[in-house]
């Protein structure tokens, strides 16, 4: 990690050079984005279907939330099993505007034919009936007060998950809740939130959730093939920016301190660091990242409902990061991309069923079993996850002596010198 030489008068090396993995990652992401664009229906030769572009775009968002999970769990040691709640809240925040605005345009359109021009009240009632008829209401609940404003709802994408995480974290960390108890608390939080949203009078359409989010208001003329690419690019950009941010955070002394908190929290306290403040900072920041990822994900998915923030979603998130390799940023990305794409393949009915004669393994049902087994296997046999493979390859090319002597006598060349 720290390749900074300790000779005095050294100049600061750019982040990308100190962490070649950042550069490699960004280059691969750029190539991937370019490749998908060229192969897409919207801007390229049409090899990749629009629905698959959406799947890839959604995968990038999942990679982003996995990065957040890696930061909070892999680096800071807080096993949060509630981060998908923040992801969902980001989705709801943007979904409210998308649904409101699109419905408004439809209502205005239909009322335009009437003899008298419609009043603002009529339009508002029309929208409310359209949106909330399904839960037997015809008025806007208070939470929709700002749904007409894109800037405010965009701010909510960041503010609502951030605020919830801040308050929750402040209460939990201040009481020194750690380890498995904290995990249970975060599970309780996401469960409570999803149960609340399931209610019809929660104001967010109960179990129907928000739908039609793939249609951007006022842009009906733009084909989905194009819109899907816009979101794909947005997701790729967000992932790249998120990766840079996370790499920057974990690179310096801050990264040192949070890893130290993960390994021995009490000791860090005796060094004089306010451990709770650091945890709260990371918890809130990662919740905000998760919110942004969610806001990019759900317009591509088209629908969001309370099942999305059920506890199982957050557990999947932890599984992705564990399989990919926690404590390294690219590990989280690899894990999320690999497992979620594989999951799409298995549950999408594309995987060939295996006929054992007496029983047919249908992957749609058996995929979760396979995932569970591989999670156990990774935890037991390869705690570094898929990312650990990188170490094996790197060790083969240059054995890591951790800067020790290369020879038996004290004056022998040191590894660092030999590298130059």
């Amino acid at each position: 990690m720290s390749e900074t030489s300790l000779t005095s008068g050294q100049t600061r090396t750019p982040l990308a050079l100190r962490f070649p993995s950042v550069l490699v990652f960004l280059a691969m992401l750029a190539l991937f984005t370019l490749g998908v664009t060229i192969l897409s229906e919207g801007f390229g030769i049409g090899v990749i279907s629009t629905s698959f572009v959406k799947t890839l775009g959604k995968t990038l968002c999942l990679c982003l939330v996995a990065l957040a999970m890696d930061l909070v769990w892999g680096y800071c040691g807080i096993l949060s099993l509630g981060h998908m709640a923040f992801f969902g809240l980001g989705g709801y925040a943007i979904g409210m505007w998308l649904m409101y605005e699109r419905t408004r345009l439809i209502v205005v359109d239909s009322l335009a034919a009437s003899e008298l021009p419609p009043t603002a009240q009529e339009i508002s009632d029309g929208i409310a009936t359209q949106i909330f008829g399904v839960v037997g209401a015809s008025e806007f609940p208070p939470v929709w007060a700002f749904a007409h404003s894109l800037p405010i709802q965009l701010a909510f994408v960041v503010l609502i998950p951030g605020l919830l995480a801040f308050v929750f974290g402040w209460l939990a960390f201040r009481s020194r809740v750690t380890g498995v108890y904290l995990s249970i608390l975060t599970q309780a939080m996401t469960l409570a939130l999803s149960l609340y949203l399931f209610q019809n009078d929660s104001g967010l359409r109960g179990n129907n959730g928000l739908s039609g989010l793939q249609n951007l208001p006022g842009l009906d003329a733009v084909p989905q093939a194009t819109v899907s690419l816009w979101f794909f690019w947005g997701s790729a950009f967000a992932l790249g920016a998120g990766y840079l941010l996370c790499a920057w955070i974990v690179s310096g002394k801050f990264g040192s301190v949070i890893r130290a908190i993960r390994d021995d929290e009490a000791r860090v306290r005796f060094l004089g660091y306010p451990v709770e403040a650091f945890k709260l900072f990371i918890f809130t920041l990662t919740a905000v990242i998760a919110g942004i990822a969610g806001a990019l994900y759900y317009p591509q998915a088209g629908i969001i409902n309370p099942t999305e923030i059920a506890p199982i979603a957050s557990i999947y998130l932890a599984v992705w990061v564990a399989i990919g390799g926690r404590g390294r940023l690219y590990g989280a990305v690899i894990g999320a991309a690999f497992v979620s794409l594989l999951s799409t393949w298995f549950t999408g009915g594309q995987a060939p069923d295996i006929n054992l004669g007496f029983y047919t393994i249908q992957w749609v049902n058996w995929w979760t079993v396979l995932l569970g087994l591989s999670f156990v296997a990774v935890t037991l046999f390869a705690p570094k996850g898929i990312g650990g493979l990188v170490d094996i390859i790197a060790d083969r090319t240059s054995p890591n002596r951790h800067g020790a002597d290369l020879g038996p006598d004290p004056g022998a060349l040191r590894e660092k010198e030999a590298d130059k």
Partner: protein
Amino acid sequence: MSTLLEVSGVSVSFDGFKAINNLSFQIGAQELRAVIGPNGAGKTTFMDIITSKTRPDEGRISYGDKGLSLLSMSESRIAQAGIGRKFQRPTVFEDQSVADNLMMALRKARGPLRVLMFRPTPADHDRIAELAGEIGLSGMLHRKSGELSHGQKQWLEIGMLLAQEPRLLLVDEPAAGMTPAEREHTTDILREAARTRAVVVVEHDMEFVRRLGCKVTVLHEGSVLAEGSIDHVTKNEKVIDVYLGR
């Protein structure tokens, strides 16, 4: 000599067992002090109370020129106020390099945002190199501290304490598990540190305490049994009975 820390009438009990019983203790601003006593005498609890790991049932602790009360402060605030502590087992961050460990300990702003914006200056690197020299780990700055020997970890921890530039250093059994040569080096480091600050060493090993050549406080059943030079306390009848006689 001004008093840096004054503990007066402190008691603490765990489930009815009095671990510390009406203990009073003071130490000057530049003083080396050894605290000895048999197992269960309350030596570690005494340090826990000063660093706020354990809250006492009664008593007062005043620290520094302004007579700050430590009882209402959190662990991290106390550390920031200049009290450093070394635990019995060496606790360094094994996953990180020696340099990173020292960098974390350097006396700098401790808030999250300040830490996030922190970038080491050449002076910081020099200070770390200097500290590494003092604790005999110069050639190992880039090694993971988990790869160090037991004695080297102890030194690294002492180095981290020195990096914090504390005014009061609490050291719990620094010589445990060290070779004779390592012990000697440790003695030197501690004596050197006590020139500019207060150092309290909790120790079992009489020989080690003798080599420190400082005032000794003997604890027994949670209160001070005797205080004075090593020769003075080893001649004390009560001390011989409870401790040396065994």
